[in-house]
């Protein structure tokens, strides 16, 4: 349960805007263990999304070392990054990003298509039951509420049984009650060894995590361990 799944040292990400160099992330050290829920807090422009993009192998660091699920990521191109992501990382986004033409079941099974796996109906039912959407399997996204859509996105991420779940502002478009239920679901998932990284503006939600890391100007300015007892 306590194996390190993500390890980063001196992580930097620079962007070039004309002659100007923007330091979106400026030397971050971070380590995340299996079954750990880590929240990344900070104001807009603090580097939360940049950090999460790097940790989830959607982007490559300009400098520093990064190891994800035992694989070194620094210096890899997109074609190599996707190989690291496949089957290891699950994603949940603020905007849900469900495919509007696919039913709930089809959306949930979509990642399997790209992994070359045949969907097992029982597994799909199991995941939908886990997120409380068994009765919405044949619905289209536009027939669901925001909270339900986010649950579909979580089910989609879980379908491949990832080792790491990355959630970028997962409750940003949800009301407080729905947001809380999502965090409760995340908490349950960590008990199965899933590492969860969440970015959020909401410090109350951030405190639900095992660790809350706060970023400012691309640097970690605080790292707290709220020490909330885990749900049974």
């Amino acid at each position, binding site marked *: 349960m306590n194996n390190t799944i993500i390890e980063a040292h001196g992580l930097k990400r620079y962007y070039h805007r004309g002659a100007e160099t923007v330091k979106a992330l400026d030397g971050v050290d971070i380590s995340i263990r299996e079954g750990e829920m880590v929240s990344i807090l900070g104001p807009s422009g603090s580097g939360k999304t940049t950090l999460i993009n790097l940790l989830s192998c959607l982007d490559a660091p300009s400098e520093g070392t990064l190891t994800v699920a035992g694989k070194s990521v620094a210096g890899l191109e997109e074609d190599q990054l996707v190989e690291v992501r496949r089957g290891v990382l699950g*994603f949940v*986004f603020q905007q849900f*990003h469900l*495919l509007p*033409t*696919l039913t709930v079941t089809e959306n949930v099974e979509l990642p399997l*298509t*790209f992994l070359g796996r045949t969907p097992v109906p029982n597994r799909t039912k199991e995941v939908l039951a886990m997120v409380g959407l068994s009765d919405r399997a044949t619905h289209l996204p536009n027939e669901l509420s925001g909270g339900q859509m986010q649950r579909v996105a979580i089910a989609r991420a879980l379908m491949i049984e990832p080792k790491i779940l990355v959630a970028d502002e997962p409750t940003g478009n949800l009301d407080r009650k729905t947001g809380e239920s999502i965090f409760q679901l995340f908490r349950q998932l960590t008990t199965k060894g899933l590492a969860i990284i969440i970015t959020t503006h909401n410090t109350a939600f951030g405190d639900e995590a095992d660790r809350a890391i706060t970023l400012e100007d691309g640097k970690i300015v605080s790292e707290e361990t709220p020490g909330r007892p885990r749900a049974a």
Partner: protein
Amino acid sequence: MLTRYLSLAVKNLRRRLVRTTLTVAGVGLAVAVAVSLGGFVLGYREAIDKSIEMLGFQVMIMAKGCPYEAATLMLKGGTGLLYLPSDTYEKVKRDDAIDAITPIFVGIAQKEASSIRDEGSEKTFTVVDGIEVPSFTAMKPWLKFKGGAGYAGGKWFDQASKDEVVLGYELAEYEQRKVGDTFYATITPFGKPDLVRHEFKVAGVLERTGTQDDGTVFMPIDAARAAFNRPNQLTILGLKLKQFNAANMREFETKWLKLPEVQVVSLQQVKTTLISLVSTAQTMIAAVAVIAVIVALIGVINTILMSVYERTGEIGIMKALGARRSDIFQLVWLETLMICLIGSIVGSIGAWVGAGLVEKAIKSLADLGVSGSIVRITPGVIGWAMSGSIALGFFAGLYPAWRAASMRPVDAIREGAS
């Protein structure tokens, strides 16, 4: 896996149904033009081949004149006929190179308004072929008499007869004439000012041949010459050579071109002439087809590119979820191929259903010198057009698919969310 990609592609295309339908219609139109053109090229060549084969000759000797007229004269009938002295027949038939020969006298008669279909029309004309039955039927052994009620007992006229005719199938249908009926024709004898009205007895009606013979009145050659007051003339000598090849043809031509006012035309030359007559038109139509295909191609690229841009966020998500560059490429490419495939099916069906209209349109625009169907849409033509359409889809899809596959997930997701 392909099934799942196909399902995804179909759902993506259905998302913007009007746009997809218009794009498919564009491809369909281009394919319909291409199939119709292919059908016309094939059908016209086959019509020429059939018409020439059904003439029964390999070579024609006729009076010097416009080679195009010469080409169409026997195939389609015509006016402005030129005549040879009848002793040409006597001279030529002694040539050892000849296997069979038949003299034909062609004249144009004005028909009486005897049919209800002539009502209101000022005058109509028909081709009269004066023939020598034994040599003519030896050249065209397929000519058979129509049977059934009113047509039984049909036979060739006696060669010495002056008032018997045999009618081609369509002419008999048009004139509503059967065996034993009277056929009226008005002929202007050569060198005389007045029209002479003739009454002929129908000795027989021929079965349909799909050639100019179907619209022709056949009568004994001497009777025809007398009626047209050209007692010592003929129009064409139809020939078969014992050995027909280019060398023999050249030798034969050289020998008989010595006769004054004679041209020797091989039916291969006739075919070449007829094909060259329409080749310009075919080139023009082909140019239109190419333009239609290019426009359709641009439409397909535009549609797929728009679809890719609209789905930037989704593509980013798919990549985040584990889709490789090749997965996205295949998905977008499949959509392009599906548009082209559906368009080609729609276009092929449209061309097949509309072949009759295309044929009527072409025939109304130009006299192509042949009888029968000139647009023939075969599975081969459709196959070629569909293969071409899919091949174009193959290329049209390359850029949009590459564009989608090259998106970085982090950028695509950000753009999609904005």
